[in-house]
């Protein structure tokens, strides 16, 4: 198999705050293949968004510091790139879709112009994207509606399923609905012809019916543009619908990763199992949903060992050891010491190994 498109090795991002060091992402590794949709799922504050922004190097520093053994994109380490090279990659090779389409578009520019701008930056259009010509476009003449970049914008708006792209391109973000704005964001992300899109909770701010449309759109565009997608969400349903593989994050660490089907059917990590149990089922006759007792640990000066041990029903003394990822299946790993060889040997006497939960295969 060819080398993966994106390889993140041992990414650690922390923020130095007055209260101490917040280790938002604590040593995670994963890879994204060509044309794949890779899901990252986790609770609020588990470090999903920080992971996304670390890949793009959009962490404000100070207070943020990105450390990693490597973040390899197409075989090249992004951490060794110079700022101008990074700016070329942002939007041109890797682009990002943000959570809230209400605030991620500039309110004083037409949506067409905001898409065209990206095309001018990253594609070989005949138009200059120098500072003064952009200033002239913004403050004096307005964008040309005959230009190559404008035509590209309209073409993209059509492809992401915006009706009437010719008219819509002239409108301002406040004139569009949330779903349409998110489509504009997607068009903007595609405008530089990237090979990877990092979508940070792209549907969280939308209602469910629009969410379904947008996800469907993402799946189609993946094939059409041959892009890979890193889809970040807290919604297991979204992951189940769209992702080829997924990683479960908790308190800045990867708990489990594997193919979507495998993880959903046979979750190996107690945290993943607990997550699955807390999903309401349409066939449920439970009166109360299962919840995970306790809350996410404080990330300030986080102690070593499994961050989930305080809430885990299988916790044992080995949980304070630093986490290791164990292979638990084909391309399926779980960071839980219950899967270590010693424990397994011990457990052959006792039958109390974490029961694989009967995975919910249907989503609400």
């Amino acid at each position, binding site marked *: 198999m060819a080398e993966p498109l994106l390889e993140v090795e041992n990414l650690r991002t922390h923020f130095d705050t007055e209260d101490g060091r917040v280790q938002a992402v604590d040593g995670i590794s994963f890879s994204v293949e060509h044309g794949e949709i890779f899901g990252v799922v986790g609770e609020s504050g588990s470090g999903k968004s920080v992971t996304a922004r670390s890949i793009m190097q959009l962490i404000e520093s100070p207070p943020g510091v990105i450390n990693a053994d490597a973040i390899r994109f197409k075989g090249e380490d992004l951490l060794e790139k110079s700022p101008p090279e990074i700016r070329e*990659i942002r939007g041109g090779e890797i682009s990002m879709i*943000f959570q809230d389409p209400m605030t*991620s578009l500039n309110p004083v520019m037409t949506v067409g112009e905001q898409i065209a701008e990206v095309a001018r930056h*990253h594609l070989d259009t005949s138009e200059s994207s120098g*500072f003064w010509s*952009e200033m002239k476009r913004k*403050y004096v*003449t*307005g964008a040309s509606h005959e230009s190559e970049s404008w035509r590209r914008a309209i073409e993209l708006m059509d492809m992401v399923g915006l009706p009437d792209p010719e008219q819509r391109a002239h409108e301002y973000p406040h004139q569009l609905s949330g779903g349409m704005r998110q489509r504009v964001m997607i068009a903007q992300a595609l405008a530089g012809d990237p090979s990877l899109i990092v979508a940070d909770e792209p549907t969280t701010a939308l209602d469910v019916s629009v969410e379904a449309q947008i996800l469907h759109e993402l799946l189609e565009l993946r094939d059409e543009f041959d892009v890979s997608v890193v889809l970040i969400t807290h919604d297991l349903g979204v992951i189940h619908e769209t992702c080829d593989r997924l990683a479960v994050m908790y308190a800045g660490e990867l708990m489990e990763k594997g193919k979507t089907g495998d993880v959903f059917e046979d979750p190996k990590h107690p945290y993943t199992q607990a997550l699955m149990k807390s999903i309401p089922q349409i066939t449920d006759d439970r009166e109360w949903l299962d919840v995970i007792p306790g809350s996410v640990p404080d990330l300030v000066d986080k102690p070593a060992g499994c961050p989930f041990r305080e809430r885990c029903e299988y916790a044992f003394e080995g949980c304070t050891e630093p986490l290791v990822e164990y292979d638990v299946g084909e391309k399926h790993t779980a960071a839980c010491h219950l899967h270590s060889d010693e424990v397994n040997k011990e457990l052959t006497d006792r039958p109390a190994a974490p029961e694989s939960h009967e995975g919910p295969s249907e989503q609400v």
Partner: protein
Amino acid sequence: MISRLINTVSRRLTGGSETHLFGIRSNLLERFSRILKRDRKAQVGLSIVAVVSLIAIFAPVIAPYDPMSQNFPVMQPPTFTGAHPLGTDSFGRDLLSRVVFGARLSLAVGLSAVAFGTLIGVPMGLYAGYYGGWVDDLLMRMVDTMWAFPALLIAILAVAIHGQSIWVPIFAIGFALIDDFARITRGEVLSIREEEYTLAAESIGMGKFKIMFEEILPNAVAPILVQYTVSTARAILTEATLSFLGIGVKITTPTWGSLLRQGRGFIQQAWWISIIPGLIIMITVLGINLFGDALRDAFDVKESGGT
């Protein structure tokens, strides 16, 4: 009537729905005309600004005589009709002609002084607000220092170095206005840079410089423009003060301030030489301030429910 005119103009200018009028959203002119329709103050303000601007632009056409010629009887009282409607001054110059040309100079000085303040203050505020940290500290302490210098002091300094000329009040007043623009811009930028679209701009590969001027500045234009208007009124007043004190333009240059100054010695014999320019300054400043208020309303998106 005026609002209909503005509507037509705005449609002409924008060719329908879309504009990039200084990066401001298209319906600004529409909204302004709506405000004009219901707001008497705005109507008065706009009328005064329009009339004074027209007088300033067409001064050579409107003025009946050369403002410098001294061929008329000395100190004629205003008759409001006839050859010298506003009378003549102590050198026998036609006061109406001098006031008309004075409009040109006073407005020019006012507008260019504010332009000077804007051109320096706005980029300072942008940098300070966007970069934060030590850049912010450095620039804002500079602004604080500037704040401590009144325009008067700078004008005296400039006159001492450069001698009297029209550039002295422009520089002195402009310098004193830098801090206003820097502060206002910084305040706006501080809130805008937290908006997700600046992060989005970064995520599409824009550099900090481009983000500042292309993404953030267009969102801060509204308050800056309002400040520009209000500052122009203040600049005209300050110019009058400087000229009155004799540290502005040359005494022969007919700005409104220097007209005031010339009448100072004759206030008991010929009140009109100083009172008339004084009244005109007052009306103009009032008009500009009213206009500025209307502009502020037009920009105030919260009031009209849009974002």
